[in-house]
C-alpha cells in the first residue's frame, strides 16, 4: 500500500527510512512525515481512514476515540444454533474457581442432607428386608403344611400295609370274586389240568 515518492524525493528521505511509509501507515508519525513529504501525485487511501488523513493534513491531533464495537445482541443478530459446552460460558459476578465449605454451618447443612438421605436408604432397606422375610416365612409355612400332609398320607398307607394285605384289598369291589375264580380254575370255566399220583 505504500506510495513511492518520486525519485527526486527518494534521495533525501533515504536517511530516514520511516519516511517511506505512507500517510495512512500510522497516526503517530503522521505530522512529521506529512510536512516532509513532497507533493504526491496520488494517495491511495482506505475508505474508513479518509477523514483521518484529512485531519492530519490540516494539523489537528488524531482522535483517540476508538470505534465502537457492537455485540451480537446490540445488532440483533440471530444466535448461532450451537451447543456451548459446560464450563466455557463464564458466569459474571461469580467467584472464580472452587467454592470451599469451611464454616460450621455449611458443613452441618451438608451433613444433615447426607444423614437424611442415608436414613431414608436404610429405612427402605429395612422395610424391603422385612417384606422379603414375611414372604419367605409364608412360603416356608406353606411348604411345611404340604410336607405334613404328604407325611400323613404316607403314614396312613404304611399303617394299612402293616395291618395286612386283606384289609388293604378290601375296598376293591370285585376282589373276592376274582379270588374265587382263581381258586376254581380258569376264567373260561375249563377245569385246570392236574397230574396226580394214585
Amino acid at each position: 500500500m505504500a506510495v513511492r515518492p518520486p525519485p527526486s524525493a527518494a534521495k533525501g528521505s533515504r536517511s530516514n527510512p520511516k519516511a517511506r511509509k505512507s500517510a495512512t501507515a500510522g497516526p503517530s508519525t503522521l505530522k512529521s512525515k506529512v510536512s516532509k513529504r513532497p507533493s504526491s501525485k496520488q494517495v491511495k487511501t482506505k475508505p474508513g481512514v479518509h477523514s483521518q488523513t484529512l485531519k492530519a493534513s490540516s494539523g489537528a491531533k488524531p482522535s483517540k476515540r476508538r470505534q465502537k464495537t457492537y455485540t451480537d445482541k446490540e445488532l440483533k443478530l440471530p444466535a448461532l444454533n450451537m451447543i456451548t459446552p459446560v464450563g466455557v460460558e463464564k458466569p459474571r459476578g461469580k467467584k472464580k474457581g472452587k467454592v470451599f465449605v469451611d464454616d460450621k454451618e455449611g458443613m452441618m447443612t451438608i451433613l444433615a442432607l447426607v444423614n437424611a438421605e442415608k436414613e431414608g436408604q436404610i429405612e427402605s432397606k429395612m422395610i424391603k428386608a422385612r417384606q422379603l422375610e414375611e414372604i419367605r416365612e409364608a412360603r416356608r409355612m406353606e411348604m411345611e403344611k404340604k410336607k405334613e400332609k404328604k407325611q400323613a398320607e404316607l403314614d396312613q398307607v404304611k399303617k394299612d400295609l402293616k395291618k395286612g394285605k386283606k384289609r388293604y384289598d378290601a375296598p376293591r369291589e370285585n376282589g373276592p370274586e376274582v379270588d374265587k375264580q382263581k381258586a376254581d380254575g380258569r376264567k373260561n370255566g375249563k377245569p385246570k389240568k392236574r397230574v396226580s399220583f394214585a
Partner: protein
Amino acid sequence: MRALTDVETQTLFSKLANYTGRSLTQLIAPSDSTGDDDDRHVFRLHESRVYYVRLSIANLATSIARDHLLSLGTCVGKFTKTGKFRLHITALDVIAPHARYKLWIKPNGEMPFLYGGNVVKAHVGRWSEDCPEHSGVVILAMDDTPLGFGVTARSTAEARKLEPTSVVAFRQADVGEYLREEDTLFTT
C-alpha cells in the same frame, strides 16, 4: 492443603455416614467445645488425602510449603481420580465412637480378621440387631477394642439361619494393615 469443596464434603460425609449414625455431627461441632473457633476440628485436603485436624494446627500448617508437608492430623482417606472417596484404616478412630452398627468377634476370630480375612459366623460373638445387609459395620473385639470395619454380607435375621462357616461381614479395613501395608499406607 485446602478446605474441601461442597461436592467433596458431600462425598466424604456420605461415606462416613455409612458407618456412623446421627452422632457424626459431633465430629464437626463437639458438644463439649468451649465455643472457641480454633478448638474445632476441620477436614483438610492435601494431595488427594483428607485429614481431620484441629483448626489451630491446620492454620499453623499453612507456613509449611506444600511439597514439604507430608501429613497432619488424622488421615481419614483419599479421593480417587474418579472423585470417589476411600476410607483408610486410620479413620477407624474417628468413626468407631459413632458407629451405627457394630459386630463383636470372639478371641478365636481376631487373628483371622487381622490377617485380612472376612468375618465368618462362627467367630461372631455379638452383633447389632436389625442390621440390614450391605451396610457399613464397625468390627470390635469382645473387649470393645475397634479392630476394623467392613460391610455386612447378610442382614441379622438372615445371618441367624446361616451355617457357621459362611461369611457374615466383608472386611474393608483392619488394624493389621498398619503392619501389612506399612510401606504404602502413608506414601502419596
